């Protein structure tokens, strides 16, 4: 064994040569089987051999005895490091066991290191610069001393951040009994950069050392603990690589962390770890460890010296679980115009079945490459390597979203410079104007609409009132754009859809209720029913853009009621009953029914949408062609410029899309403004004022919904400023915008007043009053006719028209008749009207 270490004492610990050394699956290295068995006895973990040796062989043949090495220990698990079985780490592989073992059998190595490298030299694992003793000591010191006072990780919740972090985690292990210690690599890096470098470069050697260190420490502290197997260290967040595309040959055999999306998982693959042989002649048993996927079958029985008498006993061999997972680059990481890359990942033991296709995950693991055999019987090799990652740690990136905790799950990592840049931008007094003009620069003017959409992109603050029984208050702002065709509504929607990370774009014409919500379908592979989510659920925490809102069928529209106020979706179909989160902002666009906006009609009449739905929109904007010369001139200039200006010129004028994206993402995740005292006063006043306006004319002009809208808008405006407090300027802008939108959408064309009831009840107050007047006039007319029990419908209509000074349409007449019928004054049967 020493020969292995001294074979090449002068060679620098070169990464290159190691890469190929570990990929020798095709030709086993010339190691003698004797060494292998010896290696096992002094294996780096306390060997399971020790307790096993004392047991009788009789019950060992029982079928209950097969399984992972951990289950092979008889009796109750004993405490202490010697008594706790080690579980083989399939993720690290057994490839390089021999040289490691050499170094761990300490008394021997002590002498060998002197002979090898002279006095005062440190002993290192062959091919690396890792000294086991130092490494262990460093890691133990790290565990004992490292504190992370500023840690914001969710995993550390409930821990005292000023105490050594990992010692608390060890205590946790002894309580919970799950022998896995997750270690954040960046912690190691801040603690000891050299140790970190070793961990990244030689994970296969360093991680077992860590395991050893942590187990010693653990059982020293808590000698009475009982664990299923020894603690395994799982490092994560190695900052080596972040993107799958950036992987290159230099990363082979290093610890890497990449993010991606699971696209396929294989069935469970049992992988033999240890083969059990029994002699057919003398029933002598022996175990052989699988070495690089091969079993060295003993040719001779050691007991009776019969040749070729050993037979493999399958159900006493030890297997470990393994699963192949295909990981695909996340769409965000990809350069435009390319297809996503995929990587093969192997999960071992308890990491099997931890992830499902579709999950977004960060994985930490060791990158491997192995040459491909062209033909097993030929010496020629395809000059290509197969690569895969042996996973050590999974971390789902969208996990928190599933649990509905917060938006932190999408922590986009901004560099310090970027944050500083964004903050600088936020400090500018005209940031609001700047951002709104950066929004869809190709669309001309409509500044208030852009401002509204900007606020929608930021959203309000999410408030939780579950305790008081009201549940969540909606923080999302919904906007409806209506107006003449060809006023670039669709373009605006497309822009927003492209801007936000979780945006969905649907068209009212083409979508059905299930397409928006969720549907159940049979998975072709597993034949299980699975819930497929539709656009609204997919845009949870994002924006759902719905074009041609008016063309949507009533059935489809009805599902929007729940989504737009409660922000959830309830589904009850095909045996699946559930409620999904759909905290989505809706940005809808609708065309007027008569293709051209009729300014003589109310919004409701123009777009013919139910008022119940309309009242759920915070802002309703009209996009009309303002027919005035100055506007035309600017519009023409803008459009012509669009066609001849070069890219650079455009970019000079506007913030680019990436900055806007980052700005919004940063504000959404890190700014959570709250109402200040002064702002709440301003809001109250605004609301009272709104109510007052209407009361003068005997109508209600504001409802609590409007107040909520105002609050949301004010909060969003505060977010734009990166302010943690909502102040009165925010309220002012919210009021202004709200008023502008109302002025456009809720003006009663007959009176010219803004009348909120158009949106809330679908009919303006004057229209209601008018209806009543007609009914009264009709009643008077009938009464004036004296005692005639029945009248001709047409006759009555003509009489009423002749009498009234205002034009009376047939609809109005019908309505009046209905009103009188409701009073039980008359009945209408066919073409005759009878008095009661």
């Amino acid at each position, binding site marked *: 064994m020493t020969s292995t270490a001294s074979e090449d004492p002068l060679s620098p610990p070169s990464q290159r040569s190691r890469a190929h050394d570990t990929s020798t699956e095709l030709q086993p290295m010339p190691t003698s089987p004797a060494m292998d068995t010896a290696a096992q006895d002094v294996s780096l973990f306390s060997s399971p051999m020790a307790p096993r040796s004392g047991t009788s062989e009789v019950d060992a043949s029982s079928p209950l005895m097969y399984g992972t090495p951990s289950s092979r220990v008889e009796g109750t698990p004993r405490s202490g490091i010697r008594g706790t079985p080690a579980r083989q780490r399939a993720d690290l592989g057994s490839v390089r066991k021999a040289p490691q073992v050499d170094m761990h059998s300490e008394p021997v190595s002590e002498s060998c290191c002197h002979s090898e490298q002279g006095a005062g030299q440190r002993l290192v694992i062959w091919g690396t610069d890792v000294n086991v003793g130092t490494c262990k000591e460093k890691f133990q010191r790290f565990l004992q001393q490292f504190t992370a006072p500023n840690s914001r990780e969710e995993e550390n919740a409930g821990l005292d951040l000023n105490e050594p972090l990992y010692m608390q985690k060890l205590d946790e292990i002894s309580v919970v009994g799950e022998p896995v210690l997750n270690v954040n690599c960046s912690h190691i890096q801040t603690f000891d950069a050299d140790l970190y470098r070793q961990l990244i470069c030689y994970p296969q050697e360093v991680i077992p050392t860590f395991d050893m260190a942590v187990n010693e420490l653990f059982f020293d502290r808590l000698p009475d603990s009982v664990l299923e197997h020894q603690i395994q260290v799982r490092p994560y967040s190695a900052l080596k690589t972040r993107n799958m595309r950036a992987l290159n040959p230099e990363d082979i055999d290093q610890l890497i962390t990449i993010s991606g999306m699971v696209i396929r998982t294989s069935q469970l693959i049992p992988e033999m770890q240890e083969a059990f042989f029994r002699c057919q002649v003398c029933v002598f048993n022996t175990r052989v460890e699988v070495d690089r996927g091969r079993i060295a079958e003993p040719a001779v029985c050691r007991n009776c010296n019969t040749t070729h008498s050993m037979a493999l006993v399958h159900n006493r061999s030890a297997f470990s679980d393994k699963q192949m997972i295909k990981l695909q680059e996340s769409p965000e990481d990809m350069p435009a115009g390319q297809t996503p*890359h995929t990587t093969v990942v192997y999960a071992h033991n308890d990491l099997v079945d931890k992830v499902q296709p579709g999950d977004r995950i960060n994985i930490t693991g060791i990158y491997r490459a192995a040459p491909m055999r062209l033909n097993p019987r030929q010496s020629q*090799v395809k000059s290509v390597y197969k690569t895969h990652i042996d996973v050590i740690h999974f971390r789902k990136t969208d996990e928190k979203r599933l649990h509905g905790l917060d938006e932190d799950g999408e922590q986009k990592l901004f560099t310090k410079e970027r944050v500083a840049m964004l903050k600088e931008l936020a400090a500018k007094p005209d940031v609001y104007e700047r951002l709104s003009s950066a929004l869809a620069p190709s669309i001309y003017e409509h500044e208030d609409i852009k401002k509204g959409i900007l606020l929608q992109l930021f959203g309000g603050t999410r408030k939780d009132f579950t305790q008081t029984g009201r549940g969540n208050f909606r923080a999302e702002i919904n906007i409806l754009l209506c107006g003449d065709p060809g006023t670039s509504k669709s373009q605006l929607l*497309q822009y927003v859809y492209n801007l936000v990370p979780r945006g969905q774009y649907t068209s009212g014409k083409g979508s059905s209720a299930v397409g928006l919500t969720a549907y159940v379908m049979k998975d072709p592979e597993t034949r299980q029913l699975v819930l497929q989510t539709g656009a609204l659920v997919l845009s949870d925490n994002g924006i759902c853009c719905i074009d041609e809102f008016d063309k949507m069928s009533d059935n489809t529209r009805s599902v929007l009621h729940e989504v737009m106020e409660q922000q959830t979706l309830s589904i009850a179909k095909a045996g699946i009953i559930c409620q999904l989160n759909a905290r989505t902002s809706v940005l809808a666009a609708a065309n007027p029914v008569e293709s051209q906006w009729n300014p003589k009609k109310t919004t409701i009449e123009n777009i013919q949408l139910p008022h119940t739905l309309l009242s759920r929109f915070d802002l309703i904007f009209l996009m009309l062609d303002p027919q005035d010369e100055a506007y035309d001139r600017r519009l023409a200039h803008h459009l012509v410029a669009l066609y001849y200006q070069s890219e650079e010129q455009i970019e000079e004028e506007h913030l680019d899309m990436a900055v806007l994206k980052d700005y919004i993402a940063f504000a959404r995740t890190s700014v959570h403004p709250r109402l200040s005292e002064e702002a709440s006063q301003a809001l109250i006043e605004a609301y009272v004022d709104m109510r007052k306006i209407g009361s003068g004319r005997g109508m209600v002009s504001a409802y609590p919904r409007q107040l909520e809208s105002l609050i949301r808008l004010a909060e969003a405006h505060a977010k734009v400023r990166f302010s943690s407090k909502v102040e009165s300027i925010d309220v002012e802008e919210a009021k202004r915008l709200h008023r502008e939108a109302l002025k456009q959408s809720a003006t009663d064309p007959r009176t010219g007043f803004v009348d909120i009831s158009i949106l809330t009840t679908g009919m303006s107050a004057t229209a209601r009053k008018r209806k009543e007047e007609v009914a009264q006039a009709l009643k008077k007319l009938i009464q004036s006719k004296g005692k005639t029990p029945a009248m001709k419908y047409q006759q009555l209509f003509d009489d009423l028209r002749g009498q009234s000074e205002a034009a009376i349409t047939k609809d109005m007449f019908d309505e009046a008749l209905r009103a009188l019928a409701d009073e039980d004054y008359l009945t209408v049967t066919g073409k005759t009207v009878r008095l009661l």
Partner: protein
Amino acid sequence: MPTVHDWINNPLAVVDGLFAQSNSSPDWEKKVVEYFKEKLKLNDAHTWVPSLNDVPLYYLKPNSLVKFRCMVQDMFDPEFFMGVYETNDLTSNSKQVKCGKYKDITVGGQVDFNSRNTVTSERQTFYCVPIPGESQWAKESYAGTSQARVVPSTSYVPNRHKRSYEEDDEMDTQPQQLKDVSQGTQSSAESHGNTEPKRQETEAPSHDSSSAHCTSSLDLNFPLPGEKGPACLVKVYEDWDGFKLNDMLEVFGILSVDPALSVIADEREASSLLDPTEVTETVEEQRVHSPPPSLVPRLHMLYAQPLVHNNPLLPSSAPENNGDHLSSVLGELASVRAELHTYLTHVLMGDSLAAEYLILHLISNVYSRRDVLPLGKFTLNLSGCPHSSPYTEHLYKVIQQLVPSSYRLCMSLHNMNNQRMVPRKDYTANRLVSGTLQLANNTSLFLDETQLEQGQLDATGVRNITALGNLISWQKVDYDFNYHQMEFPCNINVLITSEGRSLLPSDSQVNLRPTLNPPNLEEYLSAVQVAQVPSQFNKYRIYLSGARALNYTISDEITKAVEEDFVEMRKDDPQSMSAEDLHRLLVVARLLSLSHGQNTLSRDGWMKAKQLEALRISRTQQQKSLSGNEP
């Protein structure tokens, strides 16, 4: 047989030579690329390289330099390979350091995996298909310019195995001892000194051999149904990030068809028995990623030239001096335009306005994008085409004659409900399954709506219609990646022929108004065709591709005038002129100027564009009042 063109016949010798000289300094890789670039630059050296597009695969010498005009259909994962490796020769017990670049398989002796000389390198694989919808004339014209002397093997007979063994002894000039049958035959044929030009040999065979194979066993994943030609796995060694999906390329590379590569597929069962842990690839994936090289050859890229267009009549490189080229070739641009206009007028049964718009459509091009808005697209809807008559088919044939690549999509109910238009990622086979809408830039897509009959569109049909709508409005296709969609911008000229107004959006609708009514449509159209001399066609082709590539600007003065004009028009009747109309007018003015070879918008051009639009709109309105069913 050493010839002047050794670097074509045996490029690996050049590579190995440069590698040997380098003494393992890494800049030999650059030298190799430089060497071939230099060689190809020499006057018309690239025409000496045989092309995979027009020479059947079995005529090509393995490990020789070939070129391939193709579109990147899919990008596979990057792979690691042995850039440099060391072999142990068991017989002589000597070690040799070898270069693994541009090769698929290691050669000679046992590979020493533990050698410290080994260098692992990375390369990327692209799955390339011939440019979809490439017109026959373009193919022929490309093939015609080729001067490659590919030696047709007279010994191409089924029992060639025997021959190759005989010839093995003669192969000692070859550096490698590949047991490659076709190589044997090639070199034998060569030594017979057969220098007959390959043209007459290469016309026919491209369909019988390769296509017959591929339909039977392997789906070669061509975007368009009924396509022919070889697909190719192109191995890219540097700057693969510079290539994008659907890019048109002319790849110069080393052909690798070692039959040993397909052994992997055949002996899969055997190897999987030996090594049960090797389950990284499914059978489907194996089939796609390691198809037999006789069907899908490997091409190790030395140099690739991105193609701005695939018009063989124009120089493929340097778009900036294209304008000069155009003006030099077409001093008589005005007359060519006039002739083309007359020709198209005849084809469109005497409708000169429609012919004018068709020219504008044919030279349209997305030249820029403003956030989501593509600028310069000009989708034309030719309405008023007779229903279920062969007219649209003939019209398509005319267009096919004019543009380098095109496709006619019959929007029949069956097609809409069954055809896969949007490419989709197949995760089992790990590849992008192509769809009709995966087309290279500037392909003409001819949508024939006259074929549409009444009936119900199913889910696929609705998706396809949506995809077509997106393509027209935003010039993008959302590829389906199952868990998410990915947006790929495209630049496709869409022409819709329909009876009434098309159900798809379009930038401009022209109602066809025939002034002629020939008694026999087919005879009339073929007479029109015959009247054109082939050289005439070539002029049209150069004109159309050239005009599209011209630069274009608007001066400040004209900008002012246009603004004034817009305000003026709005004053009279705001309804008549919306922002949308101005958009269209600007595009029409641009295309009109370009079609006259003008680089900038003149006042005159603007007026002409306005007149043209006015004419078109009045016609549409007349049509409306005639039929009266338009909303």
